[in-house]
Protein backbone atom coordinates (compact mmCIF):
# COMPACT_ATOMS: atom_id res chain seq x y z
CA UNK A 1 0.00 0.00 0.00
CA UNK A 2 1.49 3.39 -0.99
CA UNK A 3 1.99 6.07 1.63
CA UNK A 4 -0.72 8.23 0.03
CA UNK A 5 -3.21 5.33 0.19
CA UNK A 6 -2.38 4.91 3.87
CA UNK A 7 -2.83 8.63 4.47
CA UNK A 8 -6.27 8.39 2.83
CA UNK A 9 -7.30 5.20 4.63
CA UNK A 10 -10.53 4.82 6.64
CA UNK A 11 -8.44 4.79 9.84
CA UNK A 12 -7.14 8.29 9.09
CA UNK A 13 -10.66 9.54 8.31
CA UNK A 14 -11.98 8.08 11.58
CA UNK A 15 -9.19 9.57 13.72
CA UNK A 16 -9.32 13.03 12.11
CA UNK A 17 -13.13 12.98 11.80
CA UNK A 18 -13.51 12.16 15.53
CA UNK A 19 -11.43 15.21 16.53
CA UNK A 20 -13.39 17.44 14.13
CA UNK A 21 -16.64 16.09 15.59
CA UNK A 22 -15.38 16.98 19.07
CA UNK A 23 -14.63 20.55 17.94
CA UNK A 24 -18.08 20.78 16.30
CA UNK A 25 -19.71 19.69 19.57
CA UNK A 26 -17.67 22.25 21.53
CA UNK A 27 -18.78 24.99 19.09
CA UNK A 28 -22.41 23.88 19.36
CA UNK A 29 -22.18 23.84 23.15
CA UNK A 30 -20.79 27.40 23.22
CA UNK A 31 -23.44 28.52 20.74
CA UNK A 32 -26.35 27.15 22.80
CA UNK A 33 -24.89 28.46 26.08
CA UNK A 34 -24.39 31.94 24.64
CA UNK A 35 -27.89 32.01 23.14
CA UNK A 36 -29.48 30.96 26.44
CA UNK A 37 -27.37 33.43 28.43
CA UNK A 38 -28.24 36.18 25.94
CA UNK A 39 -31.93 35.42 26.39
CA UNK A 40 -31.59 35.47 30.18
CA UNK A 41 -29.72 38.79 29.99
CA UNK A 42 -32.55 40.28 27.96
CA UNK A 43 -30.79 40.50 24.59
CA UNK A 44 -33.34 40.60 21.77
CA UNK A 45 -33.58 37.08 20.27
CA UNK A 46 -34.21 38.59 16.82
CA UNK A 47 -30.82 40.28 17.10
CA UNK A 48 -29.15 37.02 18.09
CA UNK A 49 -30.80 35.19 15.19
CA UNK A 50 -29.58 37.93 12.84
CA UNK A 51 -26.06 37.45 14.15
CA UNK A 52 -26.26 33.70 13.55
CA UNK A 53 -27.65 34.17 10.02
CA UNK A 54 -25.10 36.88 9.15
CA UNK A 55 -22.18 34.86 10.52
CA UNK A 56 -23.29 31.78 8.60
CA UNK A 57 -23.56 33.62 5.27
CA UNK A 58 -20.35 35.51 5.98
CA UNK A 59 -18.46 32.25 6.51
CA UNK A 60 -19.66 30.37 3.44
CA UNK A 61 -17.33 31.83 0.82
CA UNK A 62 -14.13 31.91 2.88
CA UNK A 63 -14.91 28.30 3.84
CA UNK A 64 -14.87 27.31 0.17
CA UNK A 65 -11.48 29.05 -0.03
CA UNK A 66 -10.30 26.96 2.92
CA UNK A 67 -11.60 23.84 1.20
CA UNK A 68 -9.25 24.70 -1.65
CA UNK A 69 -6.43 24.67 0.92
CA UNK A 70 -7.46 21.13 1.86
CA UNK A 71 -7.40 20.15 -1.81
CA UNK A 72 -4.02 21.81 -2.31
CA UNK A 73 -2.44 19.88 0.55
CA UNK A 74 -4.26 16.60 -0.11
CA UNK A 75 -1.93 15.71 -2.97
CA UNK A 76 1.04 15.40 -0.61
CA UNK A 77 -0.44 14.84 2.86
CA UNK A 78 -3.60 12.91 1.95
CA UNK A 79 -7.05 14.38 2.59
CA UNK A 80 -7.83 13.61 6.29
CA UNK A 81 -4.86 15.46 7.85
CA UNK A 82 -5.32 18.78 5.96
CA UNK A 83 -9.07 18.44 6.62
CA UNK A 84 -8.31 18.27 10.36
CA UNK A 85 -5.67 21.00 10.30
CA UNK A 86 -7.90 23.48 8.49
CA UNK A 87 -10.89 22.67 10.71
CA UNK A 88 -8.98 22.96 14.00
CA UNK A 89 -6.57 25.81 14.91
CA UNK A 90 -5.22 25.91 11.37
CA UNK A 91 -5.19 28.88 9.08
CA UNK A 92 -5.24 28.90 5.30
CA UNK A 93 -2.20 31.17 4.95
CA UNK A 94 -0.24 29.20 7.52
CA UNK A 95 -0.69 25.52 6.74
CA UNK A 96 0.93 25.35 3.33
CA UNK A 97 3.91 27.44 4.47
CA UNK A 98 4.54 25.39 7.59
CA UNK A 99 3.95 22.05 5.88
CA UNK A 100 6.48 22.97 3.18
CA UNK A 101 9.03 24.27 5.71
CA UNK A 102 8.48 21.23 7.93
CA UNK A 103 9.06 18.90 4.96
CA UNK A 104 12.38 20.63 4.34
CA UNK A 105 13.32 20.37 8.01
CA UNK A 106 12.70 16.62 8.13
CA UNK A 107 14.85 16.16 5.06
CA UNK A 108 12.18 15.48 2.45
CA UNK A 109 13.40 18.29 0.24
CA UNK A 110 9.91 19.32 -0.79
CA UNK A 111 6.33 18.62 0.13
CA UNK A 112 5.31 15.92 -2.32
CA UNK A 113 3.73 12.48 -2.20
CA UNK A 114 6.65 10.97 -4.11
CA UNK A 115 9.18 11.86 -1.41
CA UNK A 116 6.86 11.37 1.58
CA UNK A 117 7.78 8.75 4.19
CA UNK A 118 5.78 7.59 7.25
CA UNK A 119 8.32 9.12 9.66
CA UNK A 120 8.42 12.32 7.61
CA UNK A 121 4.63 12.56 7.63
CA UNK A 122 4.13 12.11 11.37
CA UNK A 123 7.00 14.53 12.10
CA UNK A 124 5.38 17.12 9.79
CA UNK A 125 2.06 16.54 11.62
CA UNK A 126 3.72 17.13 15.01
CA UNK A 127 5.57 20.20 13.80
CA UNK A 128 2.43 21.70 12.24
CA UNK A 129 0.63 21.32 15.58
CA UNK A 130 3.60 22.57 17.62
CA UNK A 131 4.03 25.71 15.57
CA UNK A 132 0.50 27.09 15.75
CA UNK A 133 -0.84 25.91 19.10
CA UNK A 134 0.46 28.88 21.13
CA UNK A 135 -2.63 31.06 20.85
CA UNK A 136 -4.60 28.25 22.46
CA UNK A 137 -1.90 27.71 25.10
CA UNK A 138 -1.88 31.40 25.98
CA UNK A 139 -5.66 31.65 26.07
CA UNK A 140 -5.80 28.63 28.39
CA UNK A 141 -3.19 30.03 30.73
CA UNK A 142 -3.73 33.76 30.66
CA UNK A 143 -7.02 34.85 29.00
CA UNK A 144 -8.97 34.98 32.25
CA UNK A 145 -6.42 37.27 33.92
CA UNK A 146 -5.85 39.27 30.74
CA UNK A 147 -9.55 39.99 30.23
CA UNK A 148 -9.99 40.80 33.91
CA UNK A 149 -7.11 43.26 33.71
CA UNK A 150 -8.57 44.87 30.60
CA UNK A 151 -11.93 45.07 32.36
CA UNK A 152 -13.91 42.91 29.94
CA UNK A 153 -17.50 43.18 31.08
CA UNK A 154 -16.53 46.10 33.23
CA UNK A 155 -18.65 48.32 31.05
CA UNK A 156 -21.60 46.23 32.11
CA UNK A 157 -22.18 48.29 35.20
CA UNK A 158 -22.07 51.67 33.58
CA UNK A 159 -23.02 50.67 30.05
CA UNK A 160 -20.19 52.93 28.83
CA UNK A 161 -17.38 51.00 27.16
CA UNK A 162 -14.85 53.88 27.15
CA UNK A 163 -11.88 53.89 24.78
CA UNK A 164 -11.70 50.08 24.55
CA UNK A 165 -14.31 49.88 21.82
CA UNK A 166 -12.67 52.62 19.75
CA UNK A 167 -9.32 50.88 20.17
CA UNK A 168 -10.72 47.60 18.86
CA UNK A 169 -12.26 49.30 15.84
CA UNK A 170 -8.98 51.13 15.21
CA UNK A 171 -7.02 47.88 15.45
CA UNK A 172 -9.30 46.36 12.85
CA UNK A 173 -8.85 49.39 10.60
CA UNK A 174 -5.09 48.92 11.01
CA UNK A 175 -5.46 45.28 9.96
CA UNK A 176 -7.38 46.24 6.81
CA UNK A 177 -4.81 48.96 5.99
CA UNK A 178 -1.95 46.47 6.26
CA UNK A 179 -3.60 44.09 3.79
CA UNK A 180 -4.71 46.77 1.32
CA UNK A 181 -1.24 48.32 1.52
CA UNK A 182 0.31 44.95 0.70
CA UNK A 183 -1.80 44.70 -2.49
CA UNK A 184 -0.63 48.14 -3.61
CA UNK A 185 2.96 47.29 -2.69
CA UNK A 186 2.64 44.00 -4.57
CA UNK A 187 1.48 45.76 -7.73
CA UNK A 188 4.03 48.62 -7.63
CA UNK A 189 7.09 46.76 -6.39
CA UNK A 190 6.16 43.05 -6.32
CA UNK A 191 8.50 42.26 -9.21
CA UNK A 192 11.14 44.85 -8.33
CA UNK A 193 10.84 48.30 -6.81
CA UNK A 194 8.64 50.67 -8.87
CA UNK A 195 8.31 48.28 -11.80
CA UNK A 196 4.48 48.42 -11.68
CA UNK A 197 4.40 44.88 -13.04
CA UNK A 198 2.92 42.99 -10.09
CA UNK A 199 -0.66 41.74 -10.07
CA UNK A 200 -3.28 44.47 -9.97
CA UNK A 201 -6.07 41.94 -9.56
CA UNK A 202 -6.20 42.05 -5.71
CA UNK A 203 -6.53 45.85 -5.87
CA UNK A 204 -9.30 45.62 -8.48
CA UNK A 205 -11.12 42.91 -6.50
CA UNK A 206 -10.90 44.94 -3.26
CA UNK A 207 -12.21 47.97 -5.15
CA UNK A 208 -15.17 46.05 -6.61
CA UNK A 209 -15.96 44.63 -3.15
CA UNK A 210 -15.91 48.18 -1.74
CA UNK A 211 -18.24 49.46 -4.45
CA UNK A 212 -20.70 46.61 -3.98
CA UNK A 213 -20.58 47.16 -0.23
CA UNK A 214 -21.35 50.85 -0.83
CA UNK A 215 -24.42 49.74 -2.79
CA UNK A 216 -25.53 47.46 0.06
CA UNK A 217 -25.05 50.26 2.59
CA UNK A 218 -27.07 52.62 0.38
CA UNK A 219 -29.88 50.07 0.11
CA UNK A 220 -29.81 49.49 3.84
CA UNK A 221 -29.65 53.11 4.95
CA UNK A 222 -31.39 55.08 2.22
CA UNK A 223 -33.93 52.55 1.01
CA UNK A 224 -34.68 51.16 4.48
CA UNK A 225 -33.81 47.61 3.41
CA UNK A 226 -32.16 46.69 6.73
CA UNK A 227 -32.29 42.96 5.95
CA UNK A 228 -29.69 43.29 3.17
CA UNK A 229 -27.08 44.15 5.80
CA UNK A 230 -26.90 40.52 6.95
CA UNK A 231 -25.81 39.49 3.47
CA UNK A 232 -23.76 42.54 2.57
CA UNK A 233 -20.31 41.06 3.23
CA UNK A 234 -21.07 37.71 1.58
CA UNK A 235 -22.76 39.47 -1.37
CA UNK A 236 -19.88 41.93 -1.83
CA UNK A 237 -17.35 39.13 -1.70
CA UNK A 238 -19.28 36.97 -4.14
CA UNK A 239 -19.56 39.72 -6.75
CA UNK A 240 -15.93 40.79 -6.24
CA UNK A 241 -14.76 37.21 -6.66
CA UNK A 242 -16.92 36.89 -9.78
CA UNK A 243 -15.26 40.05 -11.08
CA UNK A 244 -11.88 38.39 -10.46
CA UNK A 245 -12.88 35.65 -12.91
CA UNK A 246 -13.76 38.26 -15.56
CA UNK A 247 -10.78 40.51 -14.84
CA UNK A 248 -8.45 37.53 -14.52
CA UNK A 249 -8.85 36.99 -18.24
CA UNK A 250 -7.46 40.41 -19.09
CA UNK A 251 -4.82 40.76 -16.36
Amino acid at each position, binding site marked *: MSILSQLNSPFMYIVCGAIILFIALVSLFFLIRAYRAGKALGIDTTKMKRVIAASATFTLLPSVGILLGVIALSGSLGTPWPWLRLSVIGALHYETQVATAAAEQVGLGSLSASSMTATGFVTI*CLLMSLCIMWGMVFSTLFSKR*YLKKLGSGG*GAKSGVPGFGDSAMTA*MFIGLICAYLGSYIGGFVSGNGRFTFSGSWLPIAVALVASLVMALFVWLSEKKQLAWVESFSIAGSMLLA*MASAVLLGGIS
Partner: protein
Amino acid sequence: MNEEKQALFEQYNRRTHTFGRIASVITLVLLLGVPFVIGGYLGAAPDLGAAASGFLAIGLVWFVSCIAEWLIYTPMLGAGGGYLAFITGNLINMKIPCAVNARDIVGVKAGTPENEIISTLSIATSSLVTILVLAIGVALLIPLQPLLQSPALAPAFDNVVPALFGAMAYKYFRKSLDIAVLPFLLMSLLFILVPSLIGSTSFMILPSGALAIGLAWLKYKKTGGAAA
Protein backbone atom coordinates in the same frame (compact mmCIF):
# COMPACT_ATOMS: atom_id res chain seq x y z
CA MET B 1 -27.98 46.26 33.74
CA ASN B 2 -29.58 45.37 37.10
CA GLU B 3 -27.80 43.45 39.84
CA GLU B 4 -29.52 40.16 39.11
CA LYS B 5 -28.48 40.23 35.45
CA GLN B 6 -25.00 41.38 36.39
CA ALA B 7 -24.64 38.37 38.71
CA LEU B 8 -25.99 36.10 35.97
CA PHE B 9 -23.46 37.43 33.48
CA GLU B 10 -20.58 37.08 35.92
CA GLN B 11 -21.54 33.46 36.58
CA TYR B 12 -21.80 32.82 32.83
CA ASN B 13 -18.39 34.40 32.28
CA ARG B 14 -16.72 32.36 35.02
CA ARG B 15 -18.10 29.14 33.57
CA THR B 16 -17.08 30.20 30.07
CA HIS B 17 -13.47 30.38 31.25
CA THR B 18 -13.77 26.94 32.86
CA PHE B 19 -15.35 25.34 29.78
CA GLY B 20 -12.99 27.20 27.45
CA ARG B 21 -9.93 26.00 29.31
CA ILE B 22 -11.16 22.40 29.46
CA ALA B 23 -11.96 22.39 25.73
CA SER B 24 -8.59 23.97 24.89
CA VAL B 25 -6.61 21.47 26.98
CA ILE B 26 -8.47 18.50 25.45
CA THR B 27 -7.89 19.90 21.95
CA LEU B 28 -4.18 20.42 22.69
CA VAL B 29 -3.82 16.85 23.95
CA LEU B 30 -5.66 15.52 20.88
CA LEU B 31 -3.58 17.56 18.43
CA LEU B 32 -0.25 16.68 19.99
CA GLY B 33 -1.27 13.07 20.55
CA VAL B 34 -2.69 12.33 17.12
CA PRO B 35 0.69 12.30 15.28
CA PHE B 36 1.77 9.50 17.66
CA VAL B 37 -1.51 7.61 17.11
CA ILE B 38 -1.09 7.94 13.33
CA GLY B 39 2.56 6.93 13.78
CA GLY B 40 1.39 3.74 15.51
CA TYR B 41 -0.87 2.98 12.53
CA LEU B 42 1.85 3.74 9.97
CA GLY B 43 4.51 1.89 11.95
CA ALA B 44 6.67 5.00 12.44
CA ALA B 45 7.30 7.48 15.23
CA PRO B 46 7.80 11.23 14.85
CA ASP B 47 11.45 12.23 14.67
CA LEU B 48 11.55 14.38 17.80
CA GLY B 49 15.02 15.76 17.02
CA ALA B 50 13.88 16.94 13.58
CA ALA B 51 10.68 18.33 15.10
CA ALA B 52 12.70 20.28 17.70
CA SER B 53 15.15 21.69 15.15
CA GLY B 54 12.24 22.43 12.82
CA PHE B 55 10.48 24.30 15.59
CA LEU B 56 13.58 26.39 16.28
CA ALA B 57 13.93 27.12 12.55
CA ILE B 58 10.33 27.95 11.66
CA GLY B 59 8.24 27.68 14.80
CA LEU B 60 9.66 30.62 16.71
CA VAL B 61 8.31 33.04 14.14
CA TRP B 62 4.86 31.53 14.50
CA PHE B 63 5.24 31.47 18.27
CA VAL B 64 5.68 35.26 18.25
CA SER B 65 2.85 35.64 15.74
CA CYS B 66 0.52 33.51 17.92
CA ILE B 67 1.29 35.61 21.00
CA ALA B 68 0.64 38.82 19.05
CA GLU B 69 -2.66 37.39 17.77
CA TRP B 70 -3.66 36.38 21.28
CA LEU B 71 -2.82 39.83 22.69
CA ILE B 72 -4.68 41.65 19.91
CA TYR B 73 -7.73 39.50 19.36
CA THR B 74 -8.66 38.34 22.88
CA PRO B 75 -10.04 41.77 23.88
CA MET B 76 -11.95 41.94 20.56
CA LEU B 77 -13.56 38.54 20.99
CA GLY B 78 -14.08 38.31 24.73
CA ALA B 79 -13.86 35.05 26.68
CA GLY B 80 -16.16 32.62 24.83
CA GLY B 81 -15.35 33.88 21.35
CA GLY B 82 -11.65 33.96 22.18
CA TYR B 83 -11.37 30.38 23.37
CA LEU B 84 -13.39 29.13 20.40
CA ALA B 85 -11.48 31.21 17.86
CA PHE B 86 -8.10 30.00 19.10
CA ILE B 87 -9.35 26.40 19.01
CA THR B 88 -10.82 26.63 15.52
CA GLY B 89 -8.28 28.94 13.85
CA ASN B 90 -8.56 30.95 10.62
CA LEU B 91 -8.62 34.14 12.67
CA ILE B 92 -7.51 36.88 10.31
CA ASN B 93 -9.19 35.60 7.17
CA MET B 94 -12.48 34.64 8.81
CA LYS B 95 -13.22 34.69 12.53
CA ILE B 96 -12.14 38.25 13.35
CA PRO B 97 -13.96 39.94 10.43
CA CYS B 98 -16.97 37.70 11.09
CA ALA B 99 -17.19 38.71 14.78
CA VAL B 100 -16.56 42.38 14.00
CA ASN B 101 -19.26 42.30 11.32
CA ALA B 102 -21.74 40.65 13.71
CA ARG B 103 -20.95 43.21 16.40
CA ASP B 104 -21.47 45.97 13.88
CA ILE B 105 -24.78 44.60 12.58
CA VAL B 106 -26.40 44.59 16.03
CA GLY B 107 -24.48 47.64 17.25
CA VAL B 108 -22.82 46.36 20.41
CA LYS B 109 -19.64 47.78 21.96
CA ALA B 110 -16.48 45.90 22.91
CA GLY B 111 -16.16 45.13 26.60
CA THR B 112 -19.90 44.82 27.24
CA PRO B 113 -21.84 41.64 28.14
CA GLU B 114 -23.74 41.96 24.83
CA ASN B 115 -20.44 41.87 22.95
CA GLU B 116 -19.41 38.74 24.84
CA ILE B 117 -22.64 36.95 23.81
CA ILE B 118 -22.71 38.23 20.21
CA SER B 119 -19.05 37.44 19.67
CA THR B 120 -19.47 33.87 20.96
CA LEU B 121 -22.58 33.34 18.80
CA SER B 122 -20.72 34.62 15.76
CA ILE B 123 -17.52 32.59 16.24
CA ALA B 124 -19.44 29.41 17.12
CA THR B 125 -21.68 29.75 14.05
CA SER B 126 -18.70 30.49 11.84
CA SER B 127 -16.83 27.44 13.18
CA LEU B 128 -19.81 25.16 12.64
CA VAL B 129 -20.38 26.41 9.09
CA THR B 130 -16.69 25.96 8.23
CA ILE B 131 -16.68 22.44 9.68
CA LEU B 132 -19.85 21.64 7.72
CA VAL B 133 -18.56 23.10 4.43
CA LEU B 134 -15.24 21.27 4.77
CA ALA B 135 -16.99 18.00 5.68
CA ILE B 136 -19.31 18.27 2.66
CA GLY B 137 -16.39 19.36 0.49
CA VAL B 138 -14.22 16.46 1.61
CA ALA B 139 -17.12 14.03 1.02
CA LEU B 140 -17.59 15.46 -2.47
CA LEU B 141 -13.88 15.99 -3.09
CA ILE B 142 -13.64 13.83 -6.17
CA PRO B 143 -16.64 15.29 -8.08
CA LEU B 144 -15.94 18.84 -6.86
CA GLN B 145 -12.21 18.89 -7.50
CA PRO B 146 -12.35 19.63 -11.25
CA LEU B 147 -14.78 22.51 -10.69
CA LEU B 148 -12.97 24.08 -7.73
CA GLN B 149 -9.57 23.69 -9.31
CA SER B 150 -10.60 24.80 -12.78
CA PRO B 151 -8.26 27.50 -14.12
CA ALA B 152 -11.30 29.68 -14.91
CA LEU B 153 -12.30 29.89 -11.24
CA ALA B 154 -8.75 30.16 -9.89
CA PRO B 155 -8.69 34.02 -9.83
CA ALA B 156 -11.87 34.01 -7.73
CA PHE B 157 -10.48 31.74 -5.04
CA ASP B 158 -7.07 33.41 -5.15
CA ASN B 159 -8.76 36.67 -4.22
CA VAL B 160 -11.01 35.69 -1.31
CA VAL B 161 -9.02 37.81 1.14
CA PRO B 162 -8.86 40.98 -1.05
CA ALA B 163 -12.64 40.64 -1.57
CA LEU B 164 -13.17 40.35 2.17
CA PHE B 165 -10.96 43.29 3.12
CA GLY B 166 -12.26 45.44 0.25
CA ALA B 167 -15.81 45.06 1.56
CA MET B 168 -14.76 45.61 5.16
CA ALA B 169 -12.68 48.65 4.15
CA TYR B 170 -15.73 50.52 2.84
CA LYS B 171 -17.68 49.67 5.96
CA TYR B 172 -15.02 50.89 8.35
CA PHE B 173 -13.21 53.61 6.44
CA ARG B 174 -16.40 55.60 5.76
CA LYS B 175 -17.04 56.00 9.48
CA SER B 176 -13.42 56.59 10.48
CA LEU B 177 -11.67 58.04 7.46
CA ASP B 178 -9.55 60.29 9.67
CA ILE B 179 -8.15 57.20 11.41
CA ALA B 180 -7.74 55.08 8.27
CA VAL B 181 -5.96 57.45 5.85
CA LEU B 182 -2.56 57.65 7.53
CA PRO B 183 -2.06 53.93 8.28
CA PHE B 184 -3.27 53.10 4.76
CA LEU B 185 -0.84 55.54 3.10
CA LEU B 186 2.04 54.55 5.35
CA MET B 187 1.50 50.82 4.86
CA SER B 188 1.23 51.25 1.08
CA LEU B 189 4.45 53.27 1.04
CA LEU B 190 6.23 50.77 3.26
CA PHE B 191 5.25 47.80 1.08
CA ILE B 192 6.24 49.73 -2.05
CA LEU B 193 9.66 50.68 -0.65
CA VAL B 194 10.33 47.35 1.10
CA PRO B 195 8.49 44.76 -1.04
CA SER B 196 10.04 41.89 0.94
CA LEU B 197 7.63 42.81 3.74
CA ILE B 198 4.67 41.65 1.62
CA GLY B 199 5.36 38.09 2.74
CA SER B 200 5.07 39.23 6.37
CA THR B 201 1.82 41.17 6.12
CA SER B 202 0.40 39.52 9.25
CA PHE B 203 3.29 40.98 11.25
CA MET B 204 2.74 44.44 9.79
CA ILE B 205 -0.73 44.49 11.36
CA LEU B 206 0.94 45.39 14.65
CA PRO B 207 2.52 48.74 13.61
CA SER B 208 -0.47 49.56 11.41
CA GLY B 209 -2.89 48.79 14.24
CA ALA B 210 -0.76 50.67 16.77
CA LEU B 211 -0.79 53.77 14.56
CA ALA B 212 -4.57 53.51 14.07
CA ILE B 213 -5.08 53.13 17.84
CA GLY B 214 -2.84 56.16 18.43
CA LEU B 215 -4.93 58.24 16.02
CA ALA B 216 -8.15 56.95 17.61
CA TRP B 217 -6.79 57.96 21.00
CA LEU B 218 -6.06 61.49 19.79
CA LYS B 219 -9.57 61.70 18.35
CA TYR B 220 -11.04 60.31 21.54
CA LYS B 221 -9.23 62.93 23.61
CA LYS B 222 -10.16 65.71 21.21
CA THR B 223 -13.85 64.84 21.21
CA GLY B 224 -13.93 64.23 24.96
CA GLY B 225 -14.50 60.48 24.60
CA ALA B 226 -17.47 60.72 22.27
CA ALA B 227 -16.14 59.23 19.08
CA ALA B 228 -14.02 56.92 17.00
